[in-house]
């Protein structure tokens, strides 16, 4: 039977990823002065598990790195070495390499980098440091560079033209490594025994044979190079009670049985039964556990030494009494896990279908408006039920995609540690609200912007320890990453207790760069300058936060998620950057508005109020284009029909409606003809189905089957500035 090992790869990749993430978290938490033995054990176990899986599934480069890493971790957990910062650093680096290796395997490639050798050498050196004795561990399984294989097969296996094919086989094998033909005399004369020393895997040898004959007929066994002893290729049996089968240690290819140990009776019985079966042609094997066993040899405490001790051990577990769990029928066992892994595509497909269902409902409801609600009461009842059910279904499906934000937050202890140490600053990180859930798609897209903001805060925000002490601040700076749900939005904040933004410097820079600014700009308007392209106020460009190319990208990324960024800053006290995101990318609460004959959707979250302007409220100001005087402010007027080039008859401003919106570019008034209704709409990407259109963030299908565009208010405000 052949088992396709690739079917287990994905589980292994997921599992290894989890182990690496856990290892990293634990490493960062580890108190070097007083390491918790449990934590050291857990770190070791993570590496150990990855190694075991990697070896089993044939990712030998991963197995090699984890093996070296494990050696160091093993010595740490056994307290043979005391942990040092260098060890933690090297282990973290090894973790990064392993991630890269695994990612490469996932793509079906192999990750090659000189860093691997470097880090391995460092780990090896560290694990020898302070060593009381250095015991080189044998390399893991077939991961070692050169192994010798013993190939035994029937001389006539290759068929009639044997000699010729044998020569061909020998030539092919010789290409793999060093081949020795007819190595031993201890095989029957009708069999050939060859030896091949090679770096390739067993499978490669099997493949060669596969060309010429049935590889099953060939015994391919790995020879132990260390020699001596009967143990071949990592398995064996323990020798216990002398005499019988059940007493002798049996060392076989890759496993072993302890002679005289409990369970050996069964093994012997099995062997006997097999012999019987061969003679009689049939047999029945009954495992009869509990049959009293021959007393084991004194020095072999196969059963626990003293029952009371064992009882004591059992008693230390949670109350033993009624803890028996009903066992499901054998053969259909659950895995003991209450969750399943499902590919994201399947969930997305569900969400898509629910979206279609919502649209279908809207269409039905639209058609039903023509009916008489009294005469067709049942139809209306059914529609109401359909609406409720599809809304529930939609929420349930959306919740599948929800993940706690800790998936992104968890990488930041590492980011902060690395960034701070690269800059020689002292910074701690505080995480708040890691359990806050949001859509998986958003989580993934949030990682880069947050990364940039955090690094930026450490680089430009937090002062050096020296500067902080001079200002009477605590020596160690603090970055806070906080997430929470606020009214249908997820709010993520990155704040620091650093120097704050420098208004004068930003203004000077803006003047130098010719960035347009309103007269007497508010602080908020000034802070927004850091998001302008090519705007960097760092006196020195560093590797950490780059050349100011980042912040505008940060804002663009967040806007692409229908999110908004705000900055609050106070000189000397610090800066807080607030990101507001919708809960999901798939569904939007919107207001439909009419402009000429077109229907547009405005996200509800941006709407402040709507007003019917009075005569004289709209003015044209020099340098600012059209503005509306609302309360104390003059807001830019965004005329949608102009931006989208819709033809309309001249309508007096008083006839239109102004929707006051809050955008990243500040507040503005959108001029529309009519407010239609409030809906939940299913967002369809315009980019994937058509192309990107400025001022439009997506499209949706309305109840009457028409397509409506979803407005991108930030872009609209920008556009209206360009076309006054």
């Amino acid at each position, binding site marked *: 039977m052949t088992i396709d090992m690739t079917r287990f790869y994905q589980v292994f990749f997921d599992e290894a990823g989890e182990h690496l993430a856990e290892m990293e978290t634990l490493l960062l938490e580890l108190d070097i002065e007083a390491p918790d033995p449990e934590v050291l054990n857990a770190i070791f176990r993570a590496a150990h598990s990855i190694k075991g899986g990697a070896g089993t599934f044939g990712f030998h480069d991963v197995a090699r790195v984890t093996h070296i890493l494990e050696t160091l971790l093993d010595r740490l957990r056994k307290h043979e070495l005391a942990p040092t910062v260098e060890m933690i650093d090297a282990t973290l680096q090894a973790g990064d390499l392993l991630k890269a290796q695994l990612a490469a395997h996932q793509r079906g490639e192999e990750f090659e980098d000189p860093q691997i050798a470097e880090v391995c050498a460092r780990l090896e050196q560290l694990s020898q440091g302070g060593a009381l004795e250095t015991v080189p561990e044998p390399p893991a399984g077939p991961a070692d560079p050169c192994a010798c294989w013993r190939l035994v097969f029937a001389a006539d296996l290759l068929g009639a033209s044997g000699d010729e094919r044998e020569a061909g086989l020998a030539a092919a094998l010789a290409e793999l490594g060093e081949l020795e033909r007819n190595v031993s005399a201890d095989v029957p004369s009708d069999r050939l025994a060859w030896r091949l020393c090679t770096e390739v895997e067993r499978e490669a040898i099997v493949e060669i044979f596969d060309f010429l004959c049935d590889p099953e007929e060939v015994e391919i066994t790995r020879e132990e190079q260390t020699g001596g002893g009967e143990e071949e290729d990592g398995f064996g049996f323990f020798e216990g009670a002398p005499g019988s089968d059940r007493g002798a240690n049996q060392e076989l290819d890759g496993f*072993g049985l302890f002679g005289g140990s409990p369970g050996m009776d069964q093994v012997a019985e099995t062997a006997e039964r097999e012999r019987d079966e061969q003679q009689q042609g049939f047999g029945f094997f009954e495992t009869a556990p509990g049959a009293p066993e021959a007393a084991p040899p004194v020095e072999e405490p196969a059963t626990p030494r003293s029952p009371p001790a064992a009882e004591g051990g059992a008693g230390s577990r949670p109350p033993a009494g009624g803890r028996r769990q009903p066992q499901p029928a*054998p053969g259909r066992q659950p895995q003991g896990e209450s969750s399943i892994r499902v590919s994201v595509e399947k969930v997305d497909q569900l969400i898509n279908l629910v979206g279609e269902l919502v649209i279908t409902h809207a269409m039905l409801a639209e058609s039903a408006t023509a009916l008489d609600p009294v005469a067709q009461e049942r139809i209306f009842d059914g529609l109401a039920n359909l609406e409720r059910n599809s809304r529930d279904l939609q929420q349930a499906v959306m919740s599948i995609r929800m993940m706690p934000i800790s998936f992104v937050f968890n990488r930041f202890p590492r980011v902060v540690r690395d960034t701070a140490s690269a800059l020689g600053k002292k910074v701690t990180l505080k995480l708040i609200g890691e359990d806050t859930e949001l859509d998986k798609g958003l989580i993934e897209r949030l990682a880069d912007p947050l990364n940039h903001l955090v690094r930026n805060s450490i680089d430009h925000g937090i002062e050096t320890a020296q500067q902080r002490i001079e200002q009477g601040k605590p020596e160690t700076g603090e970055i806070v990453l906080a997430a929470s749900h606020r009214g249908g939005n997820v709010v993520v904040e990155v704040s620091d207790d650093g120097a704050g933004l420098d208004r004068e410097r930003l203004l000077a820079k803006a003047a130098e760069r010719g960035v347009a600014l309103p007269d007497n700009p508010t602080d908020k308007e000034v802070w927004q300058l850091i998001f302008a392209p090519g705007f960097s106020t760092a006196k020195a460009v560093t590797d950490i936060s780059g050349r100011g190319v980042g912040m505008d990208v940060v804002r663009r990324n967040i806007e692409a998620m229908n999110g908004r960024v705000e900055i609050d800053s106070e000189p000397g006290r610090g800066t807080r950057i607030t990101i507001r995101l919708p809960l999901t990318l798939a569904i939007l609460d919107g207001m439909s508005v009419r402009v000429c004959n077109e229907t547009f959707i405005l996200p509800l979250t941006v709407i402040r109020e709507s007003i019917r302007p009075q005569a004289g409220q709209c003015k044209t100001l020099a340098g600012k284009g059209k503005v509306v005087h609302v309360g104390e402010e003059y807001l830019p007027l965004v005329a949608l029909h102009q931006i989208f080039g819709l033809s309309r008859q001249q309508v007096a401003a008083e006839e239109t409606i102004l929707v006051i919106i809050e955008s990243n570019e500040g507040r503005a008034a959108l001029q529309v003809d009519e407010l239609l209704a409030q809906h939940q709409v299913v967002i369809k990407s315009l980019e994937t189905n058509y192309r990107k259109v400025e001022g439009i963030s997506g499209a949706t299908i309305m109840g009457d089957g028409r397509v409506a565009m979803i407005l991108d208010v930030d872009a609209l405000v920008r556009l209206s500035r360009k076309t006054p």
Partner: protein
Amino acid sequence: MAKTILTVDDSASIRQMVSFTLKEAGYSVTEAVDGQDGLDKARASRFDLIFTDQNMPRMDGVTLIKQLRALPNYRSVPILMLTTESGDAMKSQGRAAGATGWLVKPFDPKKLLEVVRKVIG
């Protein structure tokens, strides 16, 4: 009736590989995620063969073997350790705890079946 095997390993991928291989070969397989889980499952049922990993959270393999050997049902059931360490220290620990034998990781499905057939047929 199919022979029943308990495989105890904290690594889901190895567990699935072992479980899948043995099920394909007609055995009835139960999985446990660590030593404690293995002990609970072993108590609740009876198995003809048990495979256990060594390094696991909550309870390691050697402890599991010791605990199992203290149970009347498992005094003489074959228990094999899956281990990455082919070192003698591990083996003698396993042997002292009452293991029937060991199988070195990494192993392939073929090797696994070879061992199982040898032990319980």
